[in-house]
């Protein structure tokens, strides 16, 4: 069963590798997969990075800040 899961996750990684415009997303995914399924240990560094990222997003959201692409903008003319 674990081998099946690993093979399946490798397939997903392969799909992500060929997907353009999602390098950051794919890098995060690969890092987490490596942490969780290969080493079986989520390092302190990985934890710190994730906590900082989510804290930053939440703080910005609570402060009323939003990414430009998340905002509703006028329709093209």
């Amino acid at each position, binding site marked *: 069963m674990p081998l099946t899961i690993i093979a399946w996750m490798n397939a997903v990684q392969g799909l992500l590798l060929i997907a353009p415009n999602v390098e950051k997303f794919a890098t995060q995914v690969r890092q987490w997969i490596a942490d*969780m399924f290969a080493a079986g240990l989520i390092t302190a560094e990985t934890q710190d990075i994730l906590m900082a990222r989510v804290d930053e997003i939440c703080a910005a959201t609570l402060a009323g800040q939003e990414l430009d692409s*998340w905002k509703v903008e006028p329709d093209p003319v």
Partner: protein
Amino acid sequence: MKRITELWFLSFAICSVLLCGTIGCGIFGKGKLESGGAYTGNVTNAPAPELYAIDATFSLVHSALTGVFDYERNNRQALWVISPNIKKALDRIRVEASAAKLQFAKARTAYKSNPTPANLSAVNTALAKLQRAQAAALVVIPLKGH
């Protein structure tokens, strides 16, 4: 070209849903949190595996949503010609996702300071809304906004 874009988004959608679903399985099934990290009691009093699973899922969902919103914004003119419904549908999702993200941020803050089952439930409720928004956003372009 449109076919490739549709296939890419469908693959992206499937991968995202599967990955978000397996993050929690990995944490609770095999993964261990190294001591000294942000989720092992130094920064928060919240139970480590639960908060890590929540944050990992949120991070992936947020990245996926941002990817779709960025793609539409960067290619707005071209997608508008294909179908105005794409932007209109994504605009509705933008509103829902922003509201869910604000709800998540408030609930997570409350859970970190006071990790009760009720606060955990509130975080998961907000996260589920974001996941629904993500799932909806990822199929907007392949379905041309319908």
